[in-house]
């Protein structure tokens, strides 16, 4: 009996050790990851000082482009949230690389759809990311809570969440469409770089798009990239309301649908061309 007990104790000891090491590993890994995510918020510091100086220099106006100084900071923080949904690092380039290497062939013979597969794996990827990144995001928002004037009302919050979901879809299908260009041109890296720059500027990651002067302001508010960062942030801050909000959400839905169709069409013709010409 005592030997059996001893065996059990020692076995339990082994289990416990393994469990502890795994948890430790997870925690340290998370710690490192969280630290990296926090580091990414560092530019917020200089942006805060910069826009404070801009408002002071302008003689302390109530708002620039409809945003007060506090709202500017809040806006930047919210664009980080929006981009956590809409940015798809490496998606387009990996599609193009698969075309180039011929790996794309497996989707011709396997009963799986390329886009579905990529979408699911990207979704999983994002879910894991949110699980780990929520804590650092929460910390930063808590520290910066002074820049927000309370939570928005429930309908606004609902619209915000809806637009984040759609920004994920839009971001995915937009980048996937770009990646499909790889079927026609082998070297797409330069194209992707140009897209990245445009994205950075016209998604509103650098500043709220409404501070642009006319006619630019009207023009940029018609293009799809605004939905990747500017629009969700503006919705949260209550800058888009009433019929404008409905119009905006419909616009985002329309662009999202357009790029779903575009990605599907491009894939259809791309694979057709690929199987016709071979890899």
């Amino acid at each position, binding site marked *: 009996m005592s030997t059996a007990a001893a065996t059990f104790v020692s076995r339990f000891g082994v289990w416990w050790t393994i469990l502890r090491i795994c948890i430790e590993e997870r925690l340290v890994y998370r710690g490192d990851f969280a630290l*990296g995510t926090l*580091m990414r918020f*560092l*530019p917020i*510091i*200089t942006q805060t*000082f*910069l826009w*404070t*100086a*801009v*408002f*002071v*220099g*302008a003689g302390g*106006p109530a708002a*620039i*482009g409809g945003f007060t100084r506090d709202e500017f900071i809040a806006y930047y923080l919210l664009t980080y949230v929006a981009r956590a949904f809409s940015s798809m690092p490496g998606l387009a380039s990996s599609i193009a690389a698969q075309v180039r290497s011929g790996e794309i062939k497996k989707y011709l013979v396997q009963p799986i759809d390329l886009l579905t597969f990529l979408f699911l794996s990207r979704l999983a990827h994002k879910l894991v990311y949110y699980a780990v990144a929520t804590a650092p995001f929460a910390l930063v928002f808590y520290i910066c809570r002074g820049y927000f004037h309370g939570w928005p009302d429930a309908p606004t919050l609902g619209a915000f969440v809806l637009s984040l979901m759609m920004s994920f879809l839009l971001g995915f299908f937009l980048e996937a469409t770009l990646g499909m260009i790889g079927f026609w041109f082998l070297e797409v*890296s*330069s194209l992707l*770089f*140009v897209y990245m*720059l445009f994205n*950075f*500027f016209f998604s509103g990651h*650098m*500043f709220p798009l409404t*501070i*642009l*002067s006319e006619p630019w302001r009207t023009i940029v508010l018609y293009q799809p990239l605004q939905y990747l960062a500017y629009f969700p942030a503006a919705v949260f801050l209550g800058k888009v309301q009433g019929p404008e909000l409905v119009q905006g959400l419909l616009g985002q839905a329309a662009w999202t649908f357009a790029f779903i169709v575009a990605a599907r069409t491009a894939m259809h013709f791309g694979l057709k061309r690929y199987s016709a010409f071979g890899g």
Partner: protein
Amino acid sequence: MQPNYFAVFREFARNSLVREMTFRGNFILDCISSLSWVFMQLGLYLVIFEHTNQLGDGTGWSRWPFFVFLATTLFVNSLVQFFFMTNMEELSDLIRTGNLDFALLKPIDTQFLLSMRKFEWSSLANLVFAAILLGVALTHLDFTPTPLQMLLYVFYVMCGVALLYSLMIGLGSISVWLGRNESLYDFWFYITNFSRYPMEIYSGPFGTPLRLAFTFAVPILLVANVPARLMAWPLASQDWRLAAYAAVASIVALVASRKVFYKALDAYRSASS
């Protein structure tokens, strides 16, 4: 007998150019991409100066003086990129593969060899753009800079390069010590980000300590601020103290970082094969 450093330098420059020219497509793409980032920065400030006359209250950083500042930041950064950036990025590779061994065998200053092996010619695109921007901004200032200002400007741009380079060498030493280079590059980016703005914007209960830290502890705020201040408006006596300090800080930083780097090289254990 000392090696002819100038001849070696010329050889490095030539070899890097030959190399970049063999991958011409890449080279052009690099030029375009680095220029595009600059254009976006410029775009941001053009938008900002639509809404304000100057940054901060009574700082003097109105549109054209600020563009002098922006051009200065570009100058310093593109020079650092041209001479040192590729080499520092490659330093971690050299450590990992053990190829740092070869550098330690050559009868030439090891820091020189490791810092200047490869020139990034594509960053000259930014340098040219910075020169144009500076030229345009200067003609719009409401005074004409004196030759003395021009001289001081050139000198302090070099001091700025020296300060950034010292920081880089310091980070490089850490990677020699650790035998790896994890996220040092990110660290470099986040730190130097603070140097790209006029120092006056760091004010208030949080800004002032930040300004003091980046002026005295890690003096990266001197990098662009000092040359830009000496050029953007007529020489003023209140800038002299900062300028004198910047000159001293650059020399101290160069000497100290060199000492640290050589300490790190002494600790170097080449990757076993």
